[in-house]
């Protein structure tokens, strides 16, 4: 996230900075960092410092839901905060503090669970379970993020009476590296697909250990935070035919104009491909800059209002309607896609291809070569 932010700031400053009408000049953006270290204590300390000592105009970022919930309090009512990582919907919907300064510029756990579940029902079920409920296994991290996604998924399935049977729900400690027993347990339940909620290290291990060691040859689905070069690298050939939900796909065919230049610039600066988490932050910085310009001043409340009224063209993150706008909860409606990865024997690389939504689809979804119904 930091790398994307630095890139954005550099680009904006290369052009002189942000034009602030109140002062009549362009002021270069200064990026001040606060490292929250996924600890509420450190998170609050960092934010307090940014707000008081450093006097920042806008906060951008926030990775861990738990920490973000904590560091929102010092921010409440004082500084506009564009949240670009934490996916808990609580950050914008809590009622006991003033959330009008918070803007959720990333997907919530509801945002991505729904398309994933819908995908299973619409695309997978007809292929493998046409005349029965789809058997889904869940394996997830034992933390706020993992549990949050699972809860919203379970709720969504029930509320919409989806034809999905949850045959396994395994949670694992966050530092787990050995998934064999969990996967063996899941294999016993003979699922049609496995929905993994974790970060790059765990998710890739699940995919690999499941297929290679446990013989659970089924369809695996991962969540967007795994959209990262390390994920593809770790998976290697074991990712062939498997799925990833995403809203930013640097490896796919160019689906938005900005993608090309961004990829180039990012590669040039950081010598690696950009990941998804950075994209939200990149957009977030530009959003902050644009809001400051539109507000015409550095007054935090005016900037907040400007952010609220944003109606600009989408950037790296595709949004419904094509424009960046915030709804009454200060949330956005990102367009989610489902990617299927394929292993290229010649180049020895794993590359994703968008298979959903129809408007952006590059090719149809197919079952992985090694797929066995019921695992």
């Amino acid at each position, binding site marked *: 996230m930091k790398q994307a932010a630095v890139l954005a700031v550099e680009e904006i400053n290369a052009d002189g900075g942000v034009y602030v009408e109140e002062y009549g000049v362009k002021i270069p953006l200064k990026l001040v960092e606060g*490292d929250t270290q*996924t600890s*509420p204590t450190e998170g*609050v*300390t960092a934010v307090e410092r940014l707000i*008081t*000592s450093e006097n920042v105009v806008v906060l951008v970022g926030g990775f861990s839901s738990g920490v973000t*919930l904590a560091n929102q309090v010092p921010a409440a009512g004082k500084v506009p905060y564009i949240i670009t990582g934490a996916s808990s919907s609580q950050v914008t919907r809590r009622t006991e503090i003033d959330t009008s300064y918070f803007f959720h510029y990333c997907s919530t756990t509801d945002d991505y669970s729904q398309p994933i579940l819908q995908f299973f029902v619409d695309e997978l079920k007809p292929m493998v379970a046409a005349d029965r409920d789809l058997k889904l296994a869940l394996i997830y991290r034992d933390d706020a993020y993992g549990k949050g996604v699972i809860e919203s998924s379970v709720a969504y399935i029930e509320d919409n009476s989806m034809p999905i049977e949850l045959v396994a729900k395994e949670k694992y400690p966050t530092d787990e590296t050995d998934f064999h027993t969990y996967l063996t347990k899941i294999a016993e339940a003979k699922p049609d697909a496995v929905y993994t909620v974790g970060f790059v290290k765990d998710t890739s291990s699940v995919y690999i250990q499941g297929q290679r060691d446990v013989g659970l040859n089924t369809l695996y689905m991962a969540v967007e935070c795994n959209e990262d070069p390390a994920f593809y690298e770790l998976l290697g050939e074991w990712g062939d035919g498997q799925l990833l939900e995403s809203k930013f796909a640097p490896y796919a065919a160019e689906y938005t104009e900005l993608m090309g230049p961004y990829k180039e610039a990012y590669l040039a600066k950081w010598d690696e491909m950009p990941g998804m988490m950075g994209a939200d932050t990149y957009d977030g910085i530009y959003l902050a800059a644009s809001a400051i310009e539109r507000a015409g001043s550095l007054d935090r409340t005016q900037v907040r209002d400007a952010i609220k009224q944003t109606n600009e063209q989408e950037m790296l993150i595709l949004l419904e309607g094509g424009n960046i706008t915030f709804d009454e909860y200060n949330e956005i409606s990102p367009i989610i896609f489902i990617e299927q990865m394929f292993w290229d024997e010649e180049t020895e690389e794993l590359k994703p291809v968008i298979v959903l939504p129809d408007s952006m689809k590059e090719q149809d979804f197919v079952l992985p070569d090694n797929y066995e119904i019921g695992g």
Partner: protein
Amino acid sequence: MTVRELFGKYAVSSYSAYLLLVMIGLALPLVITDDFYNRIIILTFFYIMFSTSWNLLAYSGQASLGHAAFLGIGGFASTILIINGVTPVLGVFSGALAASLVGLFLGIICVRLKEWFLGLVTFGFAIIMAAVVNELSVFIEAINGILSAVGLSGNMDPHMLGGSLGIYSPDIVSRAQYYYLFFFAMVGTILASHLVIRSKIGFAFAAIRENQAEAGMMGVDITRYKLIAFMISTFMAGFAGALFAPYNYFINPEIFSIHNSFMPIIMTISGGIGTIGGPIIGALVINILWEQMGLWGMSIDRLLILGVILVLEILFLPKGLMPLIKKITDKVAGTTSRDMPL
């Protein structure tokens, strides 16, 4: 007596030093208005409390490697109670009490254990606690992160807690209220620790620590005193946790982290294990260093440096900074200190 000797006897005695510090402490919020620095100082007070509690247990020869467990128990217990309507003061003390009862339980397990066994079991206990609390989230919703400030103050208004303690003043910024809350809690903890160490109980602790077998032969009821040490120490830790939780607006199982268990250890050792001033000096120095390094952006480096400090301490300065400080004050006052805890 010469003036110098008089001066030495009273002015530089530890009591006057403490009195001076207390006066500075009371006046500080009037001078420091920056919220951020206020927070740093409050965190330092917190660490002083927590380190003092750990120190007390170590004073009885029992070095816990999982003291964060009690921080968390105090924090969660008090927050859950307060969210459900219990008055804040009662909630905080109940949380501390809960920590103390669990501490008693752990103490019973550890009575016959020494050193590494004790260390390992206390370490493991923190992990077990984290797992247990995590699982309880099924029954007590939002353990994934309780918005503790809501709990403690009802409407995000710390005035409520201050009000019930009688230090509410509409003119002072809410930050100041948290400041005084922690300040007095810290002073109370230090005072309690001092009283315990200077009492017969403290004497028994020291005897057990120095040579358990001999202490037993002298008639000291080892089990009883070891358990007392556990109960008092964990009460203090729980108390610190109960105040700490709302201060961060949020409590989740992260509070049981290994880092939280190790901080009081590093701090106390740096200051001087077994002394009363040790945890204070140690917490002050280490926390200031910690925060300053954070300001310089050295998030990873500062962890590394903490480790280096600890190792250097053990190798070269095992008694911590206290002896150095005593040497300095001795020189100034022309006295010689007895080698006793402050």
